[in-house]
């Protein structure tokens, strides 16, 4: 049981090992605050959809399973979107368009198809939580490099002084490719 939770964080890390959900990863990791909001939203949707898929796994006809998963995932995403609009209008204003894109994050569909559809609710919950933490961990690592280099700050606090000339490449998706590539390289070398 413990293994299910932990393997999503390092060994089967969705971003660094499975290389899934890259679109949102590249887009939001230029700021730590955006990454945190995205991580929380995605982890919530992962847990909600994995639990629902697991509970319904014996009733979903194989031919339409993808359609059913999509409806379930989209429902949770819209809930997150409405919740942010109502209670965190500032964050909603900042990352609004990306919340809708959680639906297309293939990590979520991937967990539903690869794990939740064949396992009981509790293991599915642990798996979703582990993968969610792994995704959050990756976003935090990436944004902790990109925000200081691109803006000179970390979570909005200035960490590099006036002498630092912001590196625009780091703010844009190509900078994320670069940092992500280096992380994948390090992780592969270390885990050999």
């Amino acid at each position, binding site marked *: 049981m413990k293994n299910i939770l932990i393997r999503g964080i390092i060994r089967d890390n969705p971003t660094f090992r499975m290389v899934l959900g890259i679109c949102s990863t590249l887009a939001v990791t230029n700021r730590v605050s955006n990454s945190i909001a995205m991580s929380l939203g995605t982890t919530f949707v992962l847990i909600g959809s994995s639990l629902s898929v697991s509970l319904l796994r014996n009733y979903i*006809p194989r031919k339409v399973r993808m359609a059913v998963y999509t409806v379930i995932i989209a429902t949770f995403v819209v809930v997150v979107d*409405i919740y942010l609009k109502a209670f965190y209008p500032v964050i909603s204003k900042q990352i609004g368009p*990306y919340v809708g894109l959680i639906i297309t994050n293939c990590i979520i569909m991937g967990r539903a198809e690869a794990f939740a559809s064949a396992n009981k609710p509790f293991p599915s919950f642990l798996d979703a939580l582990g993968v969610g933490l792994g995704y959050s961990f990756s976003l935090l690592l990436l944004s902790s490099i990109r925000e200081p280099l691109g803006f000179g700050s970390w979570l909005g606090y200035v960490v590099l002084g006036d002498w630092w000339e912001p590196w625009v490449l780091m703010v844009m998706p190509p900078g994320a490719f670069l940092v992500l590539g280096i992380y994948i390289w390090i992780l592969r070398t270390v885990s050999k």
Partner: protein
Amino acid sequence: MREKVLIVVVLFAVSTVSALMLAGVNAASKDVIIKNRERAFKEALISVLEIKGDGQTIENLYETKIKEQKLPAGNVYLSVDGENIKGAAFKLTGPGFWGPISVMVGVTLPDYKISGFEILEQGETPGLGARIDEVEFKKQFLAKKLDEVIIIKVKGEKPGINDVSAITGATITSKSLEKIINEAASPFIESLKESDRG
């Protein structure tokens, strides 16, 4: 045959449950969301018209210091102090890079210099276009003349007196905003000048 019926039944059931859930969440939060939006609108008005609060609530300030006026171009919010009209504010909307951008602009009268500039709604790229909502960018517009052309200059070009500098890496957002500020504002300026003469 049995399988086909099952497919329809399951899909229908899942969609129905989903729709009911969303309808419930929407009904529960609709009022809060509308209130948030109204509050943000009034806050933006008070900020761009430079109305000083002295600890008064937003609602109170809005009731006492702002007068709404319907002009052919749309709603204009006048900052009033007794009989004097000190400034005007209005909402400008236009397409951005990803979705519509709405801004609130306040000008002092009768010189049409920008007294405040706030973003009401935008869906631009976080970290790039979305930076039009940062203070450093917005404050560039202060004291620029809205009844003349304001150009948002891309990096490298030297901004003139009535120009502001674009956000690096967000040329399309900057140019869209430039279009909104100049084109959407001109009917408001014309109506205001006309009602001033008349």
